[in-house]
């Protein structure tokens, strides 16, 4: 890792903004790091001062010593190489406003839910308590059956409380663009229901000051029963209905064409999008913009080739002439591509071989110390982090070269590599297990949090996002760098028939062709 010379700057954004912008800009600005911070590290490798891309997050984490550094709001540290333009300021304020707006909506929904919960729970209690408070003297005394009903009300309310807590008061995992239709319908249903019960109670019991207390208690019990049934309806509508797979969706990433297929049940488009995004973070290999540069340069070369002059003044013929001319031109770019790819493949394999050997050798230097030995020789004992730091230098160069060749160097910081090494040593993993995460790009979840680039996704859809998924519906999930194109197909109705095979029916004959001499 190169030794730095100058101070640098970092610009942090809040979580509600796309963090891609910050990453790309910081990568461009970043030349080298402060000398003081480097001296704390025990590793000193002097490689030529090429692009110091692996050192990014290492120093970032040193400067801001808290775990959620990605979540902190805007902060500018040190002197800036580039000045903040007016655009940046406008963008920052807009993002702050957006984030405030989102939180507002979340709290609003939360307070509404809590209010409704309180209303629902206090209603039966109120039904039971109000007669005692208002016309105590006229009221019939509560007999045995009535007191039994008290217990029933109490336990049913307890069950309802637990069930509602389990189903509704889970941490929200996403902010969807439109309101969740089923939840809204259920809320309206509950509200109407409770209001109608209050209406009846108010008119027939409060006004007339009914003395039959047992009837009132039974009325309260019927309310709680009906609430439990509404909760059952909620479970079926919100959770169970979409479990049965109904649609097969095909998700394609627009930049590199990665395709995955998932099975989803009957969901609205926004909920389907949410399910797909959760799968995206686990299944799709991380988006690596460095791999797309080659095809872009080829495309640029194609466009730069011909100059077309419009003689007749007809627009159509110009484009057609251009395409025809391009087709006729003797183009050797396919040749270049072939040899370039072959060369790259060879280079990658060579570096990989060197890396594997270096890592295996490094791992042989570290041995887990047994319990008995620990008491005997407390001399050179190291904890996993120190052991990792000790063996890291021998494999660092090979690893860095390999990551550069496969254009993954910005995904892994030195700190994260050392952490992973310490983790592998602690868990007795082999060198191959340690290397697996570097040899091929893994899912986005595998990388450090600053690579979970967008938590802000835009759903682009021709149909309304609260309408259900249909056969052939297409929508887009856009984030700052790329978009995911989703098409859905209905899973066909499967007609299965049965064929019985008697186990005794398995008989065989030999097919012979013998030759006899006579």
């Amino acid at each position, binding site marked *: 890792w190169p030794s730095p010379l100058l101070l640098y700057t970092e610009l942090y954004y809040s979580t509600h903004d796309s963090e891609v912008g910050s990453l790309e800009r910081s990568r461009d600005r970043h030349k080298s790091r402060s000398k003081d911070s480097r001296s704390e590290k025990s590793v000193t490798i002097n490689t030529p001062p090429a692009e110091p891309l692996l050192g990014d997050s290492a120093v970032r984490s040193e400067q801001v010593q808290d775990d959620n550094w990605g979540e902190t709001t805007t902060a500018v540290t040190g002197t800036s190489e580039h000045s903040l333009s007016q655009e940046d300021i406008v963008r920052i304020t807009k993002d702050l406003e957006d984030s405030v707006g989102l939180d507002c909506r979340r709290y609003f929904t939360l307070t509404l839910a809590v209010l409704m919960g309180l209303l629902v729970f206090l209603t039966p209690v109120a039904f039971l308590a109000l007669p005692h408070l208002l016309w105590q003297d006229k009221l019939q005394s509560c007999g045995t059956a009535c007191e039994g009903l008290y217990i029933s009300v109490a336990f049913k309310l307890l069950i309802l409380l637990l069930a509602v807590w389990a189903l509704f008061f889970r941490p929200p995992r996403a902010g969807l663009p439109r309101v969740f239709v089923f939840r809204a319908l259920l809320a309206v249903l509950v509200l109407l229901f409770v209001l109608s019960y209050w209406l009846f109670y108010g008119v027939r019991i409060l006004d007339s000051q009914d003395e039959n207390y047992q009837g009132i208690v039974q009325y309260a019990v019927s309310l709680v029963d009906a609430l439990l049934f509404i909760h059952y309806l909620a479970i079926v509508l919100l959770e169970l209905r979409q479990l049965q797979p109904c649609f097969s969706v095909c998700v394609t990433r627009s930049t590199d064409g990665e395709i995955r297929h998932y099975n989803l049940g009957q969901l609205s488009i926004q909920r389907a999008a949410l399910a797909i995004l959760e799968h995206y973070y686990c299944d799709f290999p991380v988006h690596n913009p460095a791999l797309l540069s080659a095809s872009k340069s080829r495309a640029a070369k194609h466009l730069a080739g011909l100059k077309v002059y419009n003689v007749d003044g007809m627009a159509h013929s110009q484009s057609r002439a251009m395409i025809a001319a391009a087709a006729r031109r003797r183009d050797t770019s396919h040749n270049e591509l072939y040899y370039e790819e072959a060369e790259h493949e060879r280079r990658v394999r060579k570096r990989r071989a060197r890396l594997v050997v270096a890592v295996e050798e490094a791992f042989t230097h570290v041995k887990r110390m047994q319990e008995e030995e620990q008491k005997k020789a407390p001399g050179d004992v190291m904890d996993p982090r120190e052991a990792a730091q000790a063996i890291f230098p021998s494999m660092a160069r090979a690893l860095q070269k390999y990551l550069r060749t496969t254009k993954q160097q910005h995904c892994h910081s030195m700190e994260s590599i050392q952490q992973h090494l310490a983790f592998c040593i602690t868990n007795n993993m082999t060198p191959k297990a340690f290397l697996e995460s570097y040899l091929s790009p893994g899912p986005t979840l595998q990388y450090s949090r600053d690579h979970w680039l967008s938590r802000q996704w835009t759903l682009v859809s021709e149909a309304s996002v609260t309408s259900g998924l249909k056969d052939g519906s297409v929508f887009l999930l856009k984030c700052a760098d790329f978009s995911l194109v989703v098409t859905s197909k209905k899973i066909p109705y499967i007609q299965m028939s049965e064929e019985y095979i008697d186990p005794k029916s398995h008989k065989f004959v030999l097919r*012979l*062709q013998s*030759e*006899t*001499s*006579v």
Partner: protein
Amino acid sequence: MSFIPGQPVTAVVQRIEIMKLRHGDNLILGFSIGGGIDQDPGQNPFSEDKTDKGIYVTRITPGGPAHDAGLRMGDKIMQVNGWDMTVVTHDKARKRLTKKDEDVVRLLVTRKSLEQAVKQSMGGCPQTVT
């Protein structure tokens, strides 16, 4: 050689007479047979129709009695001494050819070149066996 199920089989045949050669204790003819109704007709390299379960000559000892008599590899044996060989098991065919009290076997064999020769001659009166 046409084979229509239910219809008599017609073929152009050649009459071959082989004198058995005494070789020690055995009388040998000098060829090998393959095929039969209990065998797998699909593996027969000589038959045109791969469902034909007839008896075919698979090998001829050069210089042996069969070779001298004019038998060729790939011939289908239709009759042996008057006994039918088109619908027999492999073992039965072997037994018919190796009877110890017979010195001579008179075979009726057919091959594709016979039919072609008849067609080419155009006027030859073929001997048919049904």
